[in-house]
């Protein structure tokens, strides 16, 4: 896949994110357009150079990307709105990446934005009888995979609490995170029960905000970060995908699932392996998910992530820092923007611009997002 000589190298030339939080007075178009303007400044290019926009969001309704771009000014370029649940931002990124790699455009924009609606949210991710039975509870669906993980590998609630402690500690160093306060293991274990065994501090908070990224085949600054691969896998036949609320009610199950497949394709396409990666943004919408995500992505054997976490391997000072910006657990989870926010953090780290949470000299970073559907998106970036 990486050997096609005609394909162009793709770079992130500029990147920008808003703060993440609850902003009742801001619209998605105001947040999204602010992120675009900052990303253009960061890339040091004019708006007129952008040839296409790929816009990811989940709950923003019809032509939401057009409303954002409308604030900047229409220039006759195509605006493509994409929705793939919590991996929407990575899907927009993937389309932007492909459009340049395949030579269609030279410079494009990938954006993600979200403002969580208040009140009842219409769900199309579950059939109506499953909604009536109350199966659309995301912490509960994670709790099911958590139970299996505990049963199979002996992981404990203390292990899961440590994920929250690490990520909230990282988040305390991130001025854009929704939560910038560290928590203790005891605080996690004493927080309100949501869906046993998951408690409030095992679950990520929602958030509003936006992120924008300029991608190009002609980088004009040494701050540009190369996109080594960008992969989206939407579903593997027969896989139990609890985190997406899906039970495989079939007889034949695959030996490997959607996360493993997306990681394998991303590593193959990039020409690197897990051992080459210096920093990871794993999908931690629920704390336990980070542990099995690291394993499924191929960074360690199944069941061993809790021990490595205890040893500090995934800390900012460890050999494989994970969720350096605090992850979804601290940053918050703006559904359609989340995956691009992860990519943004990798870009910041590889540029050496991550401030107090900067990791020593990373060269390769990987971001992984899941989404209902199911979807699994892996992006590998290189300095």
């Amino acid at each position, binding site marked *: 896949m990486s050997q096609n000589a005609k394909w162009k190298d793709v770079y992130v030339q500029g990147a920008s994110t808003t703060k993440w939080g609850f902003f009742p007075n801001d619209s998605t178009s105001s947040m999204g357009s602010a992120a675009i303007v900052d990303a253009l400044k960061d890339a040091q290019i004019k708006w007129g150079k952008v040839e296409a926009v790929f816009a990811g969001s989940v709950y923003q309704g019809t032509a939401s990307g057009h409303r954002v771009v409308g604030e900047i000014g229409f220039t006759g370029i195509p605006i493509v709105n994409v929705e793939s649940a919590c991996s929407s931002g990575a899907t927009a990124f993937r389309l932007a990446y492909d459009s340049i790699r395949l030579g269609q455009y030279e410079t494009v924009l990938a954006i993600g934005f979200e403002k969580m609606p208040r009140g*009842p*949210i*219409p*769900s199309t991710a579950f059939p*109506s*009888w*499953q*909604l*009536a*039975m*109350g*199966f*659309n*509870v995301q912490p*509960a669906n994670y*709790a*099911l*995979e958590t*139970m*299996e993980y505990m*049963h199979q590998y002996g992981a404990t609630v203390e292990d899961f609490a440590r994920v929250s402690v690490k990520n909230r500690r990282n988040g305390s160093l991130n001025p854009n995170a929704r939560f910038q306060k560290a928590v203790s293991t005891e605080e996690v274990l004493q927080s*309100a*029960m*949501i*869906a*046993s*065994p*998951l408690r409030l501090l095992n679950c990520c908070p929602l958030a509003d905000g936006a992120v924008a990224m300029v991608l190009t085949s002609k980088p004009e600054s040494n701050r540009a970060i190369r996109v080594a691969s960008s992969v989206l896998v939407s579903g593997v*036949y*027969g896989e*139990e995908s*609890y985190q997406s609320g899906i*039970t*495989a*009610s*079939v*007889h*034949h199950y695959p030996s490997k699932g959607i996360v493993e497949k997306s990681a394998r394709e991303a590593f193959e396409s990039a020409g690197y392996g897990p051992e080459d990666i210096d920093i990871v943004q794993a999908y931690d919408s629920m704390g336990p998910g980070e542990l099995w995500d690291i394993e499924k992505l191929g960074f360690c054997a199944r069941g061993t992530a809790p021990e490595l976490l205890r040893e500090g391997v995934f800390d900012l000072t460890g050999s494989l820092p994970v969720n350096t910006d605090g992850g979804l657990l601290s940053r918050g989870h703006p559904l359609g923007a989340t995956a691009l926010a992860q990519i943004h953090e990798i870009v910041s780290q590889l540029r050496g611009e991550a401030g107090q949470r900067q990791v020593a000299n990373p060269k390769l970073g990987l971001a992984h997002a899941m989404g209902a559907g199911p979807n699994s998106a892996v992006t590998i970036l290189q300095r």
Partner: protein
Amino acid sequence: MMKIERKAIPVMEGLWKVEADGKPYLIGSRCEACGEVFFPRKKLNFCMQCHEEYLEEIQFSGEGRVLALTKVERQPAGGFYKGAVPYTYGIVQLDEGVNICSQLVDDPVLSVGERVKMVVVKLYEEENNDVMTFKFTAENSLVRGEG
């Protein structure tokens, strides 16, 4: 005054049936080409595994074991769920080898690996109807199905 009769209606048609002796069973599909089995029954005659068109309706025994379970402490978002809170649901592996998502009657409390059987019970009341669902409960539970 006219007396309005309460009716028991299923949360969705076609998920289960009740035999003459009162024993309920779940309805699924099996592919005659590759042997794949699905729950719920697939309306479209198309096998998602082998992509052939040989699906037949089958019935499951309604017995299995708990693979995972969770107790939900808060009202689910969206207003779709009208049953009692807290409630317990989980993954039940039917004896036919199919994993399904099901609410669980957790009195007595269930644990992973435990044998369970299917019952049909009330999920919630709506106007003059009792909306019924299948659930799974401990094999030795005294919970009796209502329909």
